[in-house]
């Protein structure tokens, strides 16, 4: 047998051997479930009896007969569209302040990052719930400065979603670190020559910092929006989707349909729509990937 053919075959076997754990997982736990979601979305299924084919029934009901669905879509987008830019704005501002030679920067960076590392934990959600509770920290602090607040922040449809937005902004740590790394990549000479040309603070920001950082900002924007669209633990614990469904975000509503009332078909239809939306945003990132993916090595390119 040809020696090269043999070597090729051995390489193929080795390659598939190495990726086999992932490949098996991908086929059985990701690809098969995605096909399953497509199938189930056309059925009525309560997990106890066999799935019943109902064609586009779930989608028709979802889009035309379920006002809670649209309210959930609206609430989710509102939450993501408001919280993500604010979070990134804070992250960028703080990163710029910390991107200067000062003592103790590592300490400050760690402090600002701490809320982020605690992330989506139940403990932080429980804490947040008590902070904004009727007897909670916020009302007590307001009382300290002479404002007698009788606000039930979590029970009022006007403020409930804002407590969750505030929680997201509070966790600006990881985009801050990414921006800090990005800022360090911008060569000082650019700022120096801009300085000679007469540019000062704000102008330097708009002429140099923002354009050079824009790929990083854009990447983070899309990533955080995807995470924002799928937020679950915080509304589940803090507001339970209320009041008046103002925080009944998509992932939470999907969970309730599928796992509290066992409408698996309807849940699958919701998941399919979510997949399309996420695929759209992911597509944007991949189309623009040449702007932000940076390969250091030339060897072994995939």
């Amino acid at each position, binding site marked *: 047998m040809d020696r090269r053919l043999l070597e090729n075959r051995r390489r193929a076997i080795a390659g598939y051997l190495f990726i086999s*754990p992932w490949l*098996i997982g*991908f086929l059985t736990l990701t690809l098969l479930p995605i096909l399953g979601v497509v199938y189930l979305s056309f059925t009525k299924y309560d997990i106890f009896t066999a799935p019943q084919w109902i064609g586009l029934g779930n989608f028709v009901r979802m889009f035309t007969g379920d006002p809670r669905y649209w309210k959930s879509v609206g609430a989710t987008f509102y939450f993501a569209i408001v919280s993500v830019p604010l979070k990134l704005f804070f992250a960028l501002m703080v990163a710029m302040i910390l991107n200067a030679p*000062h003592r103790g920067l590592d300490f400050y960076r760690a402090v600002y990052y701490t809320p982020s*590392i605690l992330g989506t934990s139940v*403990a932080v959600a429980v804490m947040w719930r008590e902070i904004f509770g009727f007897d*909670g920290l916020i*009302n007590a602090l307001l009382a300290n400065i002479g404002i007698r607040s009788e606000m039930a922040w979590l029970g009022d449809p006007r403020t409930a979603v804002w407590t969750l937005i505030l929680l997201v902004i509070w966790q600006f740590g990881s985009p801050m670190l990414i921006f800090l790394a990005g800022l360090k990549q911008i060569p000082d000479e650019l700022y120096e020559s801009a300085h000679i040309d007469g540019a000062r603070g704000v102008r330097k920001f708009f002429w140099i910092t923002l354009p050079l950082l824009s790929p990083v900002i854009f990447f983070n924007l899309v990533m955080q929006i995807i995470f924002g669209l799928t937020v679950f633990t915080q509304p589940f614990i803090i507001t339970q989707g209320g009041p008046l469904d103002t925080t009944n975000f998509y992932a939470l509503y*999907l969970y309730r349909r599928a*796992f509290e009332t066992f409408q698996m078909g309807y849940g699958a239809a919701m998941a399919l729509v979510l997949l399309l939306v996420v695929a759209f945003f992911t597509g944007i990132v991949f189309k623009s990937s040449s702007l932000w993916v940076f390969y250091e090595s030339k060897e072994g390119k995939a």
Partner: protein
Amino acid sequence: MSSSVLSMRTRRRFREVVFHVLVFSFGVVMLYPLLWLAGSSFKPSTEIWTTVSNIVPRTFTVAHYINGWRGFGGVSFATFYRNSFLYAGLGTLASVATSAFVAFGFARVRFPGRNIWFGCMLATLMLPVQIQIIPQYILFTQLRWVNTFWPLILPRALGQAGQAFFIFMIVQFIRGIPIELDEAASIDGLGRFGIFNRIVMPLVKPALVTSGIFSFYWTWADFLTPLIYLNDPRLYTVSVALRAFADPSGQTDWGAIFAMSFLSLVPVLIVFVIFQKQIVEGISTSGLKG
């Protein structure tokens, strides 16, 4: 002349002081909720809702930790912590081992179909867990794996459930290692597995550590998967237990709720203090979400 130099120096020092005052106060604001949680957990029950905005308790007590630790329904937090450490420990080990193995295949072996599979792997980077959760639940129910740890650990051991982040990061890391090292080892008679195990693995240790830390964080905080698959309180992880424990309709021992909430953050904070450098680098260079 000398007076202007002096004034410049004082101005610079003044600006430095302003910087530190501002940045430090902002840091206090950032940490205030956590300090409040910690402080409240050490206040006697009578003090918790009367001196709400105080961080430092007037009287210091650990009673809430002792009461809270007893848990509920006859199951103590010792069990919940054991379950969480089991999940986080096994999940992390399995995830890092698999990610390294798979990453080596993608980065160093040229086989037919590699680019397609690599593309599939990248496509799962941003796939939310909600997409697959219903069919996965049906599958695991049919395998009778509800109320076992298989649905929690197996997807991680098989490189799913967000593990693509780690595979991708390690692939990037391996690409940075000169291929000549592999060639030299091959001439010395080392096979592919030997190159993986003896040459590449020691060199990608930093990426493995970063993967391990984040895998630990994600499994420790994971709420949705245990919520769906673990219905027996004896199998609860800390996150699910905490949610049941802090249910406002059942429990009113706020001190105990605060104590158990804060305690559940302690492992995360300890890991953060120990591995701060790796964590910061991991996020800065690969955009891992924290």
